[in-house]
């Protein structure tokens, strides 16, 4: 027992751990936060909802409560309302969040032996960091010219970007900085990003174009990628620099500062199913994020808890792992690990999780061969069997795309306790939580 840790119990304040939860769009952040909150509350009531966490506590008891919001300016994540909608009949999946929100949980953990009267007091603060904004992190280490060149190269072949690319190519050399023209170009670019987002693309920058910060947009938010060295291009560069500076300032703001653990989630199974272009796009986005997170160097002479972006642990999680049988989840985890494999300052680990486990495994005999498959309930169809194919443990080769990979049914959650106050079945969420907190438990 660490005496310093025990001495903390004497002080009637809680040690705050701020955990950012972010991820590519539609990857299940809302479900993850809901499941975390409900299952931690259930653990506090003595129900073995998170077995790995229970094993880590090694017999110590835990009390969990949602503290009052106080005078916080950040909206609260209403996990219990979302859980209630999951438990309703018919169930309703939680609506994706479209703003920053905070889920706070107070946790008291008893200590063994002579320190039993000095509990460990933690306040876990999960910050729902919008996935769109996550992709602004790579911009912090990139100048306008590099970003614009890379973006235009990527858009060249995409049908969704035809109008915008036509506009950019049609700009005359030495174009002056006309505000109406800039606004047209900006709107065309935002429309392109929205179309790409609708079609399942993830690498969409700048993120605040898709999810603006509240309030009126300042003029520097109106820019778009273009090549050349005209006065217009020069103004675009200035506005890009102002945008990057604003992102940097925001990361030091009270809401996001002191995030010292991070969960990055991505729905790789859907990306595999959507095809090569969507998968490559998701891979590129994840790789960029992983590199951006590894690049954040600590400020000299400041302890880790004072660093503006001093993340010490990062969990990369492939979500919706309940859509594949347990035998294949190791492959999904390995795939996630390969896509985010980058030398990092923080300790990182990959997981394949299902925040809300909707299925059960079974062995299905297909083409006279037994395969591991899943079964679950689909609204309007009853119980459905699904063999979604083999999940690769590495990014698929070009030839692999000739075969369809996966088809993912929209399973409904298992029956939950009325009101959603019970337990939400999960896969590997407990291990992820233990990884994030093991140095404090």
């Amino acid at each position, binding site marked *: 027992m660490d005496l310093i840790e025990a001495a903390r119990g004497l002080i009637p304040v809680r040690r705050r751990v701020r955990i950012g939860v972010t991820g590519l769009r539609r990857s299940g952040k809302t479900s993850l936060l809901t499941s975390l909150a409900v299952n931690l509350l259930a653990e506090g009531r003595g129900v073995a909802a998170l077995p790995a966490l229970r094993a880590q506590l090694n017999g110590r008891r835990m009390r969990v409560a949602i503290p009052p919001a106080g005078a916080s300016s950040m909206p609260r994540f209403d996990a219990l309302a979302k859980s*209630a909608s999951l438990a309703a009949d018919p169930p309703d999946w939680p609506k994706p969040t479209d703003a920053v929100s905070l889920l706070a949980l107070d946790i008291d953990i008893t200590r063994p032996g002579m320190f039993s*009267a000095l*509990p460990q007091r933690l306040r876990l603060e999960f910050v729902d960091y919008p996935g769109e904004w996550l992709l602004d992190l790579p911009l912090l280490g990139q100048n306008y010219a590099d970003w614009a060149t890379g973006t235009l190269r990527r858009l060249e072949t995409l049908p969704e970007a035809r109008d915008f690319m036509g506009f950019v190519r049609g700009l005359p050399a030495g174009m002056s900085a006309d505000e109406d023209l800039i606004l047209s170009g900006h709107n065309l670019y935002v429309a392109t990003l929205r179309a790409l987002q609708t079609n399942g693309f993830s690498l969409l920058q700048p993120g605040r174009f898709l999810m603006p910060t509240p309030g009126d947009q300042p003029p520097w938010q109106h820019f778009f990628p273009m090549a050349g060295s005209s006065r217009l291009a020069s103004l675009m560069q200035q506005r890009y620099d102002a945008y990057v500076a604003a992102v940097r300032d925001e990361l030091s703001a009270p809401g996001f500062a002191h995030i010292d653990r991070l969960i990055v989630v991505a729905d790789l199974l859907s990306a595999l199913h959507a095809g090569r272009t969507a998968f490559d796009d998701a891979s590129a986005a994840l790789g960029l994020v992983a590199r951006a997170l590894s690049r954040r160097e600590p400020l000299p002479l400041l302890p880790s808890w004072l660093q503006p972006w001093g993340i010490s642990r990062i969990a990369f999680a492939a979500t919706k792992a309940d859509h594949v049988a347990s035998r294949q989840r190791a492959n999904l985890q390995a795939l996630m690990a390969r896509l985010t494999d980058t030398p990092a300052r923080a300790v990182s680990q990959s997981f394949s999780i299902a925040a809300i486990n909707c299925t059960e495994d079974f062995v299905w005999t297909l083409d006279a061969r037994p395969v591991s498959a899943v079964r679950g309930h689909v609204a309007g169809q*009853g119980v*459905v*069997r699904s063999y979604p194919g083999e999940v690769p443990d590495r990014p698929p080769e070009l030839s692999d795309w000739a075969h*369809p990979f996966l088809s993912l049914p929209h399973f409904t959650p298992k*029956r939950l306790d009325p009101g959603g*106050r019970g337990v939400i*079945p999960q896969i590997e969420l407990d291990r992820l939580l233990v990884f994030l907190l093991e140095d404090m438990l």
Partner: protein
Amino acid sequence: MSETRITPRLEVENPQAGRLEPESLPMVLPTKGSDRGTLSMVAMGVGVLMAGLSALSIGNFVADQFSRAPWLGWTTLAIAATGVGLIGVAVWRELSFLHRLDDVDRLRADLANPARAREAAKSWLGTLPQAAGIEAALNATDSPDAIMALLRAGPGRILADEAQTLGRIAAGQMLAVTAAVPYPALDGLIVALRGIRLVRQVASLYGFRPGTLGTIALLRRTLLSGVYVTSANIAVDTLVKAAISNPHLQTLAGDVAGAGVAARRMVVLARATAAACSPLSAEG
């Protein structure tokens, strides 16, 4: 990919089937063991012998008295029936108290259940004089969390304050008594007796009237909740200091070894008993 790989498949297994049922998860809170220990069995055996042999003796004695004279028999029977009846009433009270103690757990479960929270809150409030005027607010709330917040801020707070007052009074008495008693060996006995009385006082506050067995059961329960209460409230020391704000008592607490510890135990015991008796114990 090999050419023989199995293509993805999706098939309806049962169109009529409803949502899947989750696996039930075990509760891991301490549970009552079904195995009796050796001492318990010895105690039960002694109890059965005492009760059984006493009953037989009484029966024989009454029969013997009838054989001497009818009026003597009837008189003996009336005395025996009155005595046994009183014992029966006491046993009934103990058992009903133990049952009511289990009701606290049921009430806690109901208050945590959104479908039953409001009715559970009303049934609890019906037993409390401290609940006057809260029903209108209770009817206006729209969520179990709001109901719990209302109960905690209203009757829960009042009851906890009253329990705290009882604890402070006991703490002050402990300081005075431990300083006055000339034999340190008696300190432990005095603390134990005052502690039991305090447990019964606090239980009465919450609507219980425990007898001896009930107090033992409540003490066991209090010990469990005590872990949380002591751990959750470092402010106990402050309460003890408040309890001994009298300068004379402060001098005593400084001079008499163990007096402060005894006082502190009373405050903690009051809070732990309140936590054990309250369906809102999660507030700690």
